[in-house]
């Protein structure tokens, strides 16, 4: 067992044993390292001013992702390659291609948001050398700027890969060197850090995790910390024992079989996107509107489920798809339909020593349609008012043969719309049928009323989704409008 964390900050090793497990990467960078280029704008994952690039070892290669350092715990940087805005400029002082593009486009004013944008763009630059408009927008969803109005930043994103060969070469070299260095750390060795009364465990196998669960049922499990991080930074909660799941490679598994897609609990939104969208094209829009790029790189689907929020975006879709959850403990595995996992507000069917191991999502069959829609106050980086998901099969006559429908934001848990399903099944796919299914929603749900959305609004919008579904099945356009190309 290792009693310290090791990672690369740029090209330099850091080996830290005296780490308070609750320390965020941002606080450490700013106060201990005095690297103040990375900014704090909110400390809750909303603004992206704190964005850094974190390279994570995956099968011997580094995968770089944008990360909100304000809610990323320092201890979870173990075995990573950490890059901050200060690392981008070349040693000769020349600005990085991204930075040059930002200057050219007049994309910074007060400059406080800028380091975060630079790093979000760096992640995009690595992912996609010629991003289209939609890809750029996705990459910037998690960054706020109050001065520029964004257009110049978007323009810089379009131009940032021009004349960037030297930067690409330099980055490739840095990456190779970092991979070689990080490969020297034994990935199978678990890590434990102690600091005063606080402990941090990073097991590397399911067996170690089972044992830790048993020994410390009171411990806080966490994966991406996009929920747990806020408990620390905003609710000031003390979490004396932390167990981090990110080191358990087996939990990151993605299995694509003929009948189903299986996702380990700590697969992030970012990693799940390609297989999920391949299997269920309609997932793209839903996934792309969860948080911003940073939250999607950090947050996990297992965490979204385990967190049990009635407004989490994955459960409705996964319930409609009839996903099965696998819980695990030293006592063994337990499987259940995801819909049965959510018992009541804040209560899930999970024993103290259990954790979510994986998720099995059956593929949709020929003739089945899957749709998911998220309705929120704002298009990006916002919590759902209502999230509705539908799986439907029609028979040869066009009548609805099967339906599974689930909603988030409509009850204390994510929940099936059974009355609506019943109103659809066996009926022709007419306006009347869908209207009846919409009306039936009122028997299943009594949505909450808050200032985010009134109960009446939630109900109405949820009902309207049935009309949208009908139009959609009939081939009418129902997507969020793509923005008209900028004129002038």
């Amino acid at each position, binding site marked *: 067992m290792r009693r310290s964390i090791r990672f690369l900050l740029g090209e330099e090793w850091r080996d830290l044993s005296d780490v308070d497990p609750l320390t965020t990467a941002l606080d450490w960078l*700013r106060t201990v390292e005095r*690297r*103040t*280029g990375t*900014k*704090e*704008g909110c*400390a*809750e994952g*909303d*603004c992206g*001013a704190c964005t850094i690039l974190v390279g994570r070892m995956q099968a011997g290669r580094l995968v770089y992702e944008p990360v909100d350092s304000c809610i990323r715990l320092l201890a979870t940087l173990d075995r990573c390659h950490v890059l*901050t*805005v*200060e690392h*981008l*400029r070349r040693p000769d002082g020349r*600005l990085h291609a991204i*930075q040059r593009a930002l*200057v050219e486009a*007049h994309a*910074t*004013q*007060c*400059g*406080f*948001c800028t*380091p975060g944008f*630079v790093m979000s763009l760096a992640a995009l630059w690595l992912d996609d050398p010629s991003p289209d408009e939609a890809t750029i*927008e996705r990459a*910037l969803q998690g*960054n*706020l*700027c*109050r*001065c*520029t*109005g*964004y*257009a110049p*930043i*978007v323009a810089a994103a379009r131009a940032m890969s021009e004349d960037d060969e030297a930067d690409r070469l330099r980055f490739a070299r840095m990456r190779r060197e970092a991979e070689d260095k990080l490969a020297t750390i034994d990935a199978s060795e678990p890590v434990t850090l102690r600091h005063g009364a606080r402990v941090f465990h990073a097991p590397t196998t399911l067996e170690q995790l089972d044992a830790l669960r048993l020994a410390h049922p009171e411990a806080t499990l966490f994966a991406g910390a996009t929920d747990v991080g806020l408990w620390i930074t905003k609710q000031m909660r003390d979490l004396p024992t932390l167990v981090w799941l990110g080191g358990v490679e087996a939990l990151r598994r993605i299995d694509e079989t003929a009948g189903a897609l299986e996702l380990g609990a700590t697969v992030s939104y970012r990693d799940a996107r390609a297989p999920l969208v391949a299997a269920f094209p309609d997932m793209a829009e839903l996934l792309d509107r969860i948080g911003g790029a940073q939250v999607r790189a950090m947050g996990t689907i297992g965490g979204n489920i385990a967190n049990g929020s009635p407004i989490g975006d994955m459960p409705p879709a996964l319930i409609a798809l009839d996903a099965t959850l696998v819980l695990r403990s030293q006592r063994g595995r337990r499987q259940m339909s995801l819909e049965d996992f959510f018992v009541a507000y804040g209560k899930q069917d999970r024993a103290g020593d259990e954790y979510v191991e994986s998720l099995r999502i059956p593929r949709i069959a020929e003739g089945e349609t899957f749709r998911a829609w998220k*309705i929120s*106050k704002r*298009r*990006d*980086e*916002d*919590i759902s008012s209502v999230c509705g998901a539908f799986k439907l099969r029609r028979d040869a006559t066009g009548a609805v043969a099967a339906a599974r429908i689930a909603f988030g934001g409509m009850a204390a848990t994510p929940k099936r719309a059974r009355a609506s399903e019943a109103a659809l099944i066996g009926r022709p796919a007419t306006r009347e049928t869908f209207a009846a299914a919409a009306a039936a929603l009122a028997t299943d749900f009594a949505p909450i009323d808050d*200032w985010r959305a009134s109960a009446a*609004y939630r109900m*109405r919008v949820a009902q*309207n989704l049935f*009309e949208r579904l009908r139009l959609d099945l009939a081939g009418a*356009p129902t997507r*969020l*409008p793509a*923005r008209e190309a900028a*004129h*002038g």
Partner: protein
Amino acid sequence: MRPMKFGIGQAVKRVEDARLITGHGQYTGDVEAPGVATASFLRSPHAHARFAFVDLETARAMPGVLAVLTAADVVGLGGVPCLAPMANADGTTTPLPDCPLLCADEVRHVGDAVAMVIAEDELAARDAVEAIGVDWEPLDLVVDVPAAMKGEAAQVWPDVPGNLAFDSGIGKKEATDAVFAAAPRVVALRLVNNRLIANYMEPRGAIGEYDAGEDRYTLTVSSQGVHGLQDTLATKIMKLPAEKIRVVTKDVGGGFGVKTFMYREYPLVLAAAKMLGRPVRWLSDRSEHFLADAHGRDNVTVAEMALDEKGRFLGLRIDLIGGLGAYPSQYGPYIHYLGATMATGPYDIGAFHARVRGVYTHTTPVDAYRGAGRPEAAYVLERLVDACAREMKTTPDAIRALNFIKPAQMPYRTPTKRTYDVGEFEGAMRQALARADAAGFSARAAQAKAQGKLRGFGFASYIECTAWGEGEEGSLTLNEDGSFTVLVGTQSNGQGHETAYAQVVAQYLDVPVDSVRVVQGDTDRVATGNGTGGSRSIPVGSAMVARASDKLSIQLKELASDRLEAAVADLEIADGGVRIAGTDRAISFADIARLPKATPEARRAVESYTPPEATYPNGTHVCELEVDPETGQVTIERYTICDDFGVTLNPLLLAGQVHGGVVQGVGQALSERTVYSEDGQLLSASLMDYGVPRAADVGSFHFETRNVPSTTNPLGLKGAGEAGSIGSCPAVMNALVDALHRNYGIAHIDMPATPLAIFKAIRAAAR
């Protein structure tokens, strides 16, 4: 003006950028202060309560805690004063409370400060804040402005009945009432101007230091101007000679007006630094920003226009009730009134009267936010003018053209006693409408309709006032190495002043911008100044820098004339030096700086400039948007701006100001909603809950200028920092009302027109 490579009008890249883009900016939170301790505040969880401490000792005894201060510890210090009280229309005044540095026994809004903890680090300070024991006795409260005016409402201040801080007027009441009584048509509208929260990306922060040897304080603070803060600290709060307090501001991550003000945390970190004998730093977090920084806007206005049968505006009557929050903030009362002084906008309206009232509620104080009163005024007027067009069954452009002040009427004296020097309002409007392809709108609307979307087209013609009041005194020095230094008392908050002033110097002295250093934000280095605000820095600061540059160029020619053995009249500034005109005999500035006669005085020019009148930028914003009737979602499809900023100093900087301002306006119009619960809790208190626009919410805009140089500004400049946020709200909302009116007959909707609000309006109309 002769075009110079780096001079006025050139699209010079910013000199600030290299620093900011590589993470080397020095914002207050980045400043090193050896031995610094951290302050954290206990803030009221109640909107209105009496309280008593029951346990301070636990917190004081906690590890790492250095001090826990309450009101009793700072009795020697004055409160934070309001500097812009308003008198009532009858000449009387209402008592004006200060905001106490720490509340003694009563809190008046959620977030009001109760105690200050200073500890070794942030964590220890926050833990101690939580350990303070307070006995709260919640009291009756009021959060809604109209409700606060009712007799039975809870009172925020015992000596301010009806919570009415002032009841003022502007214009001629009787004459205006008479015009309305006789007018063939009257169109009225009641509009809410939603309360906003600035949300600059850098929250406020301050570091207090005290030098016992010199008995002198230093405040490093994220501000919009150091001299104003120094003055308030010295004269009102700490009651010390100004030279005992140095105020420093480094890089600032956005201010938008709201970082102008004195806030209680500033004197407190200074006092704590003296008590503890070490620096004390306070950095606001985002949640604190929502509760403890002044909010903006917040009024309810009834506006009426009297018209003749042809649609000519005969009179305008305004009744504005402005929210002040719990305390009168630095300029809070005046801001509501300031808007009314621009109420008649670009129109020739004979009769005018506005009643302006300010009302206290148990909420965070309200003060200037980008535009400060003028966006509110332009919003009301432009919404009303569109309503008039509908009522008169004419088009929005025809009714505006009919009523605009004509160029031939310039200079034009408004009923609010302002003098517009120049302005071609119809020209800007026509140019904007042509550029926006107004003619092609119906085809686009039909196309949208086929896809189930409702398209709307709307615009706003605004005029605003900038750069009034105080002037700037500063200097330009030729340094010994041939570079130049500007000392100026304005304060960049991200607008790029370092570049802009360097360009002015470059215009006169023909040097590259990177040879000019701009020094600002330090009361020790710059003697006087009035900071940034009211879009004043460029028009006022540049005029001062221009004068100093002109003066210095003469001084430098005088120094050069001996060496070049030529008369001053035969010399010209060229290529970074002085040259005998028409020859290649020249001396560089660096060589001039080394001449024996080049004393520091000879190399420095001190100048000042005080504007005789405000400048009046104006223009037209055109918005075209689509509403999704199923969800109430709005997308802005096209946005076109044609503005008159007099003279363009740097087109890049200018477009940046306009663009950023427009997006703030779009945010106000469509998503920024400040929500208080009935018990006074701020519900929209995080970036998740408060809708600051994100990249995908706004597209790209077309911006062009149609400049008519100001005749009152020596460089012809008009201020541009706020105009974007002034033209945008009414343009967006007029476009939205257009879409809703065409399809549902809906003639009114308030800001922010969130999907929910639009959805409700559509439902109500369909019923």
